[in-house]
């Protein structure tokens, strides 16, 4: 018998207005013809045109994308391994330290992670560039992946794996043929999380990037430090559009997958029952 009161409706409306208005305003003003970002001077796609011709931004976007794809893929492999070890690995030497190292980066301020990695890279004489950003991003995002994947591993029925082992599968085959398909949605959302974390990251990238490689957030940050710019509005709009489409698609796909899984489970129940 829950019913929305006026108070609920008002707080939901105001709350979502607060969450979305700033971004809506940003998107509207990216189509502003005027260079003065606060004065509306008619509709124009001028800033998108200038953005496409801005090679510094395009280069940075390319570096960012490269770093995000490589680091999120590495992070997914490492994070899944770590999750599997933590959930199924039983006891091993230094387990507490290991789980500590998995959880600590989640709450570590970015300035500290960035600073410490930079000091390491300088200490071992590694030139800063794409490689160092990839190493840095992989390290913090593998922890997020491992948290996402281990929550899925904990909730699934272990007897399925044991059945495969009893039926003669090698542990690797059991993982590949039984465990992996079941945890796949978590692995995919882990990858997506790692990917967006890498795309987004400014602080850690600023510490670990060298003059040879600049990422998009670093470029955006140095541009907006001087104030609002219409080109950045256009760039932000593109990024918001990509994320929105991506998240909506992912949620539709996962909804359909879980629906199919339900149907399969029902069919299996009917067949065995």
């Amino acid at each position, binding site marked *: 018998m829950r019913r929305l009161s006026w108070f609920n409706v008002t707080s939901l409306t105001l709350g979502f207005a607060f969450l979305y208005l700033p971004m809506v305003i940003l998107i509207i003003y990216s189509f502003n013809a005027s260079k003065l970002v606060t004065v509306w001077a008619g509709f124009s796609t001028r800033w998108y045109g200038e953005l496409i011709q801005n090679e510094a931004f395009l280069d940075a976007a390319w570096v960012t994308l490269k770093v995000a794809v490589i680091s999120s893929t590495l992070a997914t492999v490492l*994070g899944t391994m770590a999750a599997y070890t933590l959930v199924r690995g039983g006891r091993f030497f230094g387990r507490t330290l290991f789980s500590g190292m998995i959880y600590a980066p989640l709450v570590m301020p970015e300035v500290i992670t960035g600073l410490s990695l930079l000091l390491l890279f300088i200490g071992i004489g590694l030139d800063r560039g794409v490689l160092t950003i990839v190493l840095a991003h992989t390290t913090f995002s593998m922890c997020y992946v491992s948290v996402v994947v281990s929550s899925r591993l904990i909730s699934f029925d272990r007897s399925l794996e044991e059945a495969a082992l009893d039926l003669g599968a090698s542990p690797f085959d059991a993982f590949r043929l039984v465990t992996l398909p079941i945890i796949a949605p978590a692995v995919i959302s882990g990858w997506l999380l790692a990917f967006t974390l890498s795309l987004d990251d400014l602080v850690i990238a600023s510490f670990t990037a060298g003059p040879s490689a600049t990422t998009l957030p670093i470029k955006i940050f140095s541009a907006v430090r001087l104030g609002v710019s219409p080109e950045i509005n256009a760039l932000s709009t593109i990024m918001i559009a990509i994320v929105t489409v991506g998240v909506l698609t992912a949620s539709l796909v996962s909804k359909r997958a879980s629906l199919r899984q339900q149907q399969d489970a029902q069919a299996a129940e009917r067949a065995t029952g």
Partner: protein
Amino acid sequence: MRRAALIAVPYFWLLVLFLVPFIIVFKISLSDAALAIPPYTPTLRDGIAAMFAEFDFENFVFLTEDDLYWKAYLSSLRIALLSTFLTLLVGYPIAYGMARAPEEWRPTLMMLVILPFWTSFLIRVYAWMGILSNEGLLNQLLIWLGLIGEPLQMLNTNFAVYVGIVYTYLPFMILPIYAALDRMDGSLIEAAEDLGCSRLQAFWLVTIPLSRNGIIAGSFLVFIPALGEFVIPSLLGGSGTLMIGKVLWEEFFNNRDWPVASAVAVILLLILVIPIVLFQRNQQKQAEAEQ
């Protein structure tokens, strides 16, 4: 054999790229600044004995003597605490409304809360620069309404920092509170009302205590990152906004004083250990209670 490799690879990765860097920060915070590249004197070169002989707490003493650092720590704590409280005030009614919304709306509402989280943090902070600036939309609106005659200085003040933190961390507050409220048994409220509570009393005496765990989890999720925040104070805050993340950045990039930056990092971490341990405890207690 395979099992050993499975454990060893991520273990080794984290040891080299998480733990070792950390030890280096700790070590450099105890060494002297030097005008060289890298700009510090290595203290670990001559083995452990020399290391202990050469350790000095100069940088930490320096931090306690210069009141800039004290002020930055205190001001970070104050900003993080107050903005956590403000996020709670803004977030609770939203979570409450979501929990009372019709069943079929809830996935959409959840989606709407999560979506901004996937959008670039930097862009969400940047969006406020155009709104809060002197010629910005908020000032234009207030002048048009006749509430103020002159534009108010809002950007580059602590006010803008609070707005930025509340805005960017709001989903972290809403989601755990919503999860707690969603689990709550609605008949408890009815029971309270039947027993003579007014709606406000029922809310205060039943709903709030039952959502306590959500409130605590959400508050930590906002407080912990807000304390070390760098982007928000540097884009929205002014020269008077002191936050420790910003101080560390400036020590490192502008003053190139690595040992002091490292010492700032070590102390920030020590300050964070307390809320992190408390948060872990709370989560554990909750997990045990659910079992």
